[in-house]
């Protein structure tokens, strides 16, 4: 093993990065403290209850920024760029520090599949953490009165649940795009491998900074961080802003990469309308991520400047306007919802034809509907602000634009149903999650219009109905499809098969758990339960619903634990997987499992449609002369995806 030659924990990129981050933080904090010392300002105060945590606020902020940069240096993502600056040459595609093993994933790798796995594992860890936050405050909410937490702790944990989940979802979206897009379009890597690694690794300091907010007084604003409340919040607020800022940077750079890859690296013959449908959604997602994320970064940066430099963008007493923040914030944060769900919807569209043995109904319509959703998504942000006190007349146009989202979304639903109608359905775990996702996303979608029609939204705004609504869209649009994707591509990633029984157990616990949770949330909200409160009035008559939500939350968490155990165990001990266990036509299933390091040794040409189940003919073909000469070790795969043995088994 080559690994043993580089023994020691310091050979692991993550370890080096974290140490560098600490040094960077101290350097930055010391730098600001020195300036403060020269100016005669206080440098060190320790009084946690009074929101004083040693260094001054400005020192913490600069320290965190220095820390993030130092992490990137320490982990080694910047090495090649620094070499270029010095006029040095590097390899076209840089080699990984470790060729294989778990250390590979804890160090910088430039292989899009390794980065995809890094994104995915980080996503599950981060989502699990956010889930634990949810369990803590759900336990508090199981009955009226305060039993477990103080109101301040409740606010911090509830806010962290929101933003940590969002970061986790963004990581999950990154995992799917990174792993699948190059494979599906016949590329051997992303267009910019170094940028890809950078975009992943910046998430680590982002997560560390974000979570540090818990120990720095927390923040009590929810993930929306509305000023003036956020301008007055404890030090944790700054860490929240910086954490989201860096995670947003990752989103922008990752999106850039996906767009460039899709435009430039498609295989011969792969026109846009011949791409597997997932690529369309990944592309639409990337367009949103590239163009909208700046706004949330900007809005948080402006509040940060209010706090650190005393500026007054949103402070009325300094001539600012608190509503302006909400416009900037939601201009990103609404399209962001589609960043979370579009790739998930892509997974649904991608898997349905495989398990129904029937072409995707209305491929072009489904493909374009993703862009329809993305475009309309940019015109609807103010529907989060119907009661905010913006100009009243603005509510009407935003109501119309918001309701328009139903049109492209409807196209997807109807096309999905038409795809499985008269199909030949089989129900392996991925398919179960896909079907579950459709029904849940349907619930989320249908609970949307009452929020869009302004009159009813006057009642629903800031209630648990909204909580139920967006949990349904997130579960249906991300969580279920994400698990479907993990189970579906698991054999391609690990070369082994997951345990089908545990997979089904996971599904049959999660689906009813979710329905009970979401429907109870909606009912509680209609009856008067507000969002983001640590205690509620028993007079509302929602005690039972609250208890049910809590129980359901634990069931969902338990089911995810089963999934994680299944995945970890199967990755090491599961049965060896075949190259194409689902009889998919998608090009990545032509490759052996696990996929070799540089994907396609021979470029292929696309000669057919991606979902032509039911008629003969291949989707992609590899030049037979070159193929047979070099690839004798894989005779069974043949030139075409439909293998001859397919016809022989009874």
């Amino acid at each position: 093993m080559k690994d043993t030659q580089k023994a020691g924990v310091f050979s692991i990129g993550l370890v080096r990065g974290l140490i560098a981050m600490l040094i960077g933080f101290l350097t930055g904090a010391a730098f600001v403290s020195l300036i403060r010392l020269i100016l005669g300002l206080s440098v060190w105060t320790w009084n946690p209850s009074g929101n004083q945590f040693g260094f001054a606020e400005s020192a913490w902020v600069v320290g965190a920024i220095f820390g993030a940069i130092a992490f990137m240096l320490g982990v080694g993502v910047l090495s090649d760029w620094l070499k270029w600056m010095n006029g040095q040459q590097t390899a076209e595609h840089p080699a990984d520090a470790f060729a294989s093993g778990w250390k590979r994933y804890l160090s910088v790798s430039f292989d899009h599949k390794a980065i995809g796995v890094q994104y995915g594992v980080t996503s599950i860890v981060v989502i699990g953490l956010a889930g634990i936050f949810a369990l803590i405050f759900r336990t508090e909410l199981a009955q009226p009165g305060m039993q477990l937490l103080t109101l301040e702790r409740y606010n911090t944990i509830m806010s962290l649940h929101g933003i940590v989940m969002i970061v986790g979802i963004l990581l999950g979206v990154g995992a799917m795009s990174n792993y699948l897009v190059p494979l599906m379009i016949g590329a051997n890597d992303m267009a910019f491998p170094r940028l890809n690694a950078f975009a992943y690794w910046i998430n680590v300091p982002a997560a560390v900074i974000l979570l540090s907010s818990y120990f720095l007084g927390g923040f009590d604003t929810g993930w929306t961080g509305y000023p003036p409340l956020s301008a007055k919040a404890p030090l944790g607020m700054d860490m929240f802003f910086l954490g989201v800022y860096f995670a947003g940077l990752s989103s922008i750079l990752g999106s850039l990469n996906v767009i460039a890859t899709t435009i430039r690296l498609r295989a011969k013959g792969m026109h846009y309308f011949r791409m597997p449908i997932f690529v369309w959604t990944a592309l639409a997602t990337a367009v949103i991520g590239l163009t909208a994320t700046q706004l949330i970064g900007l809005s948080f940066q402006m509040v940060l400047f209010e706090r650190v430099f005393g500026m007054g963008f949103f402070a009325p007493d300094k001539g600012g306007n608190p509503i302006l923040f909400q416009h900037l914030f939601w201009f990103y944060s609404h399209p962001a919802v589609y960043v979370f769900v579009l790739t998930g919807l892509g997974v649904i569209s991608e898997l349905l034809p495989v398990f129904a043995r029937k072409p995707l109904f209305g491929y072009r319509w489904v493909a374009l509907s993703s862009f329809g959703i993305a475009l309309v998504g940019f015109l609807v942000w103010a529907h989060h602000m119907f009661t905010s006190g913006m100009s009243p007349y603005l509510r009407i146009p935003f109501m119309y634009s918001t309701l328009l989202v139903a049109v492209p979304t409807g196209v997807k639903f109807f096309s999905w149903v038409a795809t499985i109608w008269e199909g030949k359905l089989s129900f392996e775990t991925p398919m179960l999650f896909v079907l579950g996702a459709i029904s849940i996303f349907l619930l989320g979608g249908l609970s949307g219009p009452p929020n869009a029609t302004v009159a009813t939204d006057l009642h629903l705004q800031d209630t648990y109905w909204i909580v139920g609504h967006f949990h349904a869209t997130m579960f249906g649009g991300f969580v279920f499809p994400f698990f479907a994707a993990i189970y579906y591509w698991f054999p391609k990633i690990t070369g082994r098969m997951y345990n089908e029984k545990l997979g089904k157990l996971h599904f049959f616990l999660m689906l009813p758990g979710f329905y009970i949770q979401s429907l109870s949330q909606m009912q509680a909200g209609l009856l008067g339960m507000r969002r983001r409160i640590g205690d509620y009035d028993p007079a509302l008559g929602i005690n039972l619903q609250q208890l049910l939500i809590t129980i359901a939350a634990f069931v969902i968490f338990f089911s995810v634990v089963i999934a994680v155990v299944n995945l970890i165990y199967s990755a090491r001990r599961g049965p060896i997987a075949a190259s194409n266990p689902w009889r998919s036509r998608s090009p990545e299933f032509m490759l052996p499992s696990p996929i070799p390091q540089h994907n396609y040794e021979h470029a292929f040409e696309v000669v057919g449609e991606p979902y032509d189940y039911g008629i003969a003919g291949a989707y992609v073909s590899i030049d037979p002369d070159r193929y047979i000469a070099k690839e004798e070790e894989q005779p069974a795969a043949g030139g075409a995806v439909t293998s001859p043995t397919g016809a022989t088994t009874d």
Partner: protein
Amino acid sequence: MSTAQSEPVKNRRVLIASSHPLFGQGLRSLLQERQTAGVEVVGMVSNLEEALQALDQLDPDLIIVDYDDKKLNRDEFLARFVEGEKKLRVVLLSLQSAQEAIVYDRRTLAAAQIDDWLEEWTFTEDSSRLAAQRGKFETIMDHRRTFMKNRLQKATHLLIAGFLVVIVTALLIFGMDYIRLLPTAASAQAEPIDQLFHLEFKVIAFLFSLIVVFMLYSIIVFRRKRGDTTDAEHIEGSTNLEVAWTVAPLATVLVFAYLGGSALAATVAPAPKPLRVEVIGKQWNWSFVYPDYGVISDKLYLPVDKQAVLLLRSDDVIHSFWVPEFRVKQDALPGGQDFVRELRVTPTQLGEFKVRCAELCGAQHTYMESPVLVVAQTDFDAWLTKEAGLSDDPVERGQKWSTTFGCASCHSIDGTKIVGPSWKDLCEGQATLADGSVIPVDENYLRESILNPNAKIVQGFAAGIMPQQFIDPVSKKPITDQQISDIIAYMNSICR
């Protein structure tokens, strides 16, 4: 063609014949991945002799032969196949042509089975050549029959599913009547909103049923049969359908947008001469000012069936005014006059409700709730008179001023020490000051203590806490002599 289904579960034994070892290996892993249980590769042979030997020894059900392999004498092999009687299948596979395989199937049929088999065999697509021999006319009739049968089948599926959608929708709508979905509607504004709600719930029930019933129907009816590895019919899509389900939702949402707009208009429609109430949120309580009557209160009193215009603002962060029974909601913004927002409410039901802050506003956000009392007009007038300090009784007026000016938040009337001395202590008739001197409590002392609080400090209390000047929060004028007299009268009344 799956006669295997009726047989007892037994592993089907497969023999692979090829001199090319990779052919066998690849095929073997392919068979294993297919996961159809009960396939067992019993042997792999590389020449004819071995194959013939294996035929006797291993007793396979299926032999897969490499079509391209010159080392296997295919003709002789097939001759042996024709001679045999035992049930056996042979498949000839070629690597060169990836599409087709040749299948030889040898089995013995009972007399009764032969008819079935013939019928099944005649109607399969593969046998079109034989059908042609039976005459062109029959073929056409056959095709037409299957076509009609298919169409009928398709229509039946659609019809049944459509029928189920209607039933499920009806059940859902019927069931929703038995679930508590909305709190009592206690305002005129709630009426158009609830109408829209109920319409939307019905449409949601329909659309949910539409998709879910079709899905469940597919899951149950169109599930793959065991062992069936064929694909479904190749249907790519239908532009007509896509256009239909683009236009229909578009029309629906436009209708709802229109309805939403009219309902909104109904909720903001002004009535003549509404009651004006300033609602001020601050961390973490509400106060309510009736500017036309000079009244401030920590409870929101509203006369029934009269529109109130709530003028909302905040002293610190963003709050949101929401009484669930009134349905309507509006944020209260900091920033002074430019940021005052209005909300119209016409209570229609007597009773006590609660205004609940709906925008996260810090630690105590949860408990930022204040009572809302909807009373009859006469009761409201009586309350206003009392609260406005218009009562004839100076004690009642004094009690009112003690809350208006915030006295009560520092001075208790039951002897409890809050920030300042309790007014109950005044009943002793004398007070011990910080320097130890004892002075009598009289009207002059009390008046001085209100106007110039730091002149005489009672022992055990700090100076500089009480405001130097009291401003009436409603009229914005300094406290008057009359008001001070009223407060003193109230103080005296405590001792009685």
